[in-house]
């Protein structure tokens, strides 16, 4: 009888696995569609019904990275010119009959995203760690109110705050600068960082620090030698979070940057018109932008999942 019950359980388990696998696959279809589209050759992009199997081309990626002009009708590059063309210029010419003029706007925007997100993440994590330690270990008068204040700044809809921030930045000349966006992202992420890191630091038993203090170390030395090493996982997870948040941020970037400091999310959605409804290039841009986050998520999944739930539960 035990055997029968076991077998029934096993079958049930398999059914569950299959159901979950199907759900997951269906869930990922939009991603698959984007990947599929971004690798389609120029002629295949607007085929309907869409094909799943085709000869992949990286033409779309080249187009999103470059600025191009169309050859005038009838004008054809000579054989000599063809021979001098770089490999990517040849692909572009063959697919869309265009000439590559220069590097496009994307690399610049991509670099902006990386610079702004990295620097703001580093500052956020440093500020977040020390503040979280302060709140975790010391009696602070009105601590709960202060913590609530820190948290509540995160609940403000960006669209509400953006008007005065816009005015302030304009007054200070911070509009469309890297520093402006970095400051803003630090301010908006630090509340989250404090909350999550406070949770991690709360979990480190205070006895470790007390032992070290009795052993002849000052508070600050203890913080550096005992607390920070033990909170490394938490700090790393928080850093990834802050990075992803600022990487994905749209409202501020869109309103407070025009060109110099513009990040990818503020730029990419407006290229549809510019690209002349080049679906392939749009898909390729999307793909390139999403890939780092996907990789991060999959590599750091354990910390990340813990962080997401943890951050929420704490609040």
């Amino acid at each position, binding site marked *: 009888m035990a055997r029968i019950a076991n077998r029934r359980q096993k079958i049930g388990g398999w059914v569950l696995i299959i159901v979950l696998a199907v759900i997951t696959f269906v869930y990922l279809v939009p991603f698959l569609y984007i990947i599929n589209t971004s690798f389609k050759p120029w002629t295949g992009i607007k085929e309907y019904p869409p094909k799943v199997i085709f000869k992949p081309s990286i033409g779309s990626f080249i187009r999103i990275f470059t600025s191009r002009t169309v050859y005038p009708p009838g004008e054809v590059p000579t054989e000599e010119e063809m021979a001098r063309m770089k490999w990517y210029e040849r692909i572009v010419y063959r697919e869309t009959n265009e000439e590559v003029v220069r590097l496009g706007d994307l690399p610049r925007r991509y670099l902006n995203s990386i610079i702004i997100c990295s620097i703001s993440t580093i500052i956020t994590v440093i500020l977040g760690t020390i503040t979280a330690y302060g709140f975790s270990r010391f009696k602070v008068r009105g601590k709960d109110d202060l913590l609530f204040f820190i948290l509540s700044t995160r609940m403000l809809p960006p669209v509400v705050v953006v008007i005065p921030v816009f005015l302030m930045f304009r007054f200070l000349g911070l509009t469309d600068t890297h520093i402006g966006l970095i400051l803003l992202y630090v301010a908006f992420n630090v509340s989250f960082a404090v909350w999550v890191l406070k949770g991690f630091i709360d979990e480190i038993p205070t006895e470790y620090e007390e*032992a070290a203090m009795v052993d002849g170390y000052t508070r600050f030395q203890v913080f550096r030698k005992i607390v920070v090493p033990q909170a490394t996982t938490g700090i790393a997870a928080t850093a990834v979070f802050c990075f992803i948040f600022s990487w994905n941020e749209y409202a501020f970037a869109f309103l407070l940057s025009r060109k110099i400091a513009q990040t990818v999310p503020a730029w990419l959605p407006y290229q549809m018109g510019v690209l002349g409804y080049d679906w392939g290039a749009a898909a390729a841009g999307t793909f390139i932008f999403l890939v780092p986050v996907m990789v991060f998520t999959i590599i750091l999944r354990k910390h990340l999942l813990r962080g997401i739930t943890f951050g929420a539960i704490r609040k």
Partner: protein
Amino acid sequence: MASVRLASLTKTFGQVTAVDNIDLEIDDREFFVLLGPTGAGKTTTLRLIAGLEKPDQGEVYLGNVSVNDLSPALRDVAFVFQYYTLYPHYTVRQNLEFPLRSKLRRLSESEIDAKVSEVAGVLHIESLLGRETVNLSGGEMQRVAIGRAMVRTPKVFLMDEPLSNLDAKLREEMRTELARLHLDLGFTFFYVTHDQIEAMTMGDRIAVLNEGRILQIGTPDEIYNSPENVFVAKFVGSPTINLFEASIETSTLVVGKKTLVCAIPGTQRSSLEKYTKRELILAIRPEDIEVSKEKKKADSFKCTVYFTQSMGVEDILNLRINDLVLRALVPPKLLARVGDTVYASINMKRSHLFDSETNMRL
């Protein structure tokens, strides 16, 4: 090494008075045990000495110098925590070196090495030095924690229930080892525990603490044989002492509704006269009740065996006389079974009497 003195030390947390006006003097090189139930204020007292808490009132003296204003780092005491607190990101050697590397001490590498190897030798943990602390067994962790405390020769060793997380056998072994270590090294030990066996076996002197107050200070012998009040009598000793409500009527002690009537030994009779008609508490240790199958003595009384508990060397008989249940420690060869009728007699010379209002010894 140094003596420790606490002068009217008080510490409150919100509404709770954790430590209530404590005065204590611990001699240099003494093994002093603070014994009490959970929440008695033992750990708080220890933390006040270490400087991890600031007292609301009173002074802490280490070697006759007040250290109230010193941070824990400057007090030069060692603290062994209940959960060992070995730094998980360091190896055993790094853990042992840690106190020596403090800027306060300015030791050279060779001095550090020498001290670490010497301590490792004393505690037999040389083979562990390269290991990660997370892989150690409970007993090994305990040794490393003690080593980390020893390595810098502190004025006093503060220990917060260091054996409570070990299993019974290991605890027994470590008890002997700690007692021996104290004899060999001659440090001042201030040891906190809720386990009366640990206190009795290791302490030179014991202070029994409850609800932040010291109830009695004395050698294990004094604590066990002449408890100052009901709490101490009940807390120390296993199996627990028998306690009965009693009163004195015409030179006899009457327990319950005349369930038990015991003669008061002649020597005490005169001094107890004045307590006649007062409500008292009679306390008798289980080993001071003699049980036999036949009526041997005139003053023994008849009772039935309620249930028995074996301790190996001895059995605890739980005897029943009407509503009273009393515990008696008997040799196993008595072979009493549940429901048997037996005869018990009390060694009144070794009984204790307490005032039931103040709970103090008469």
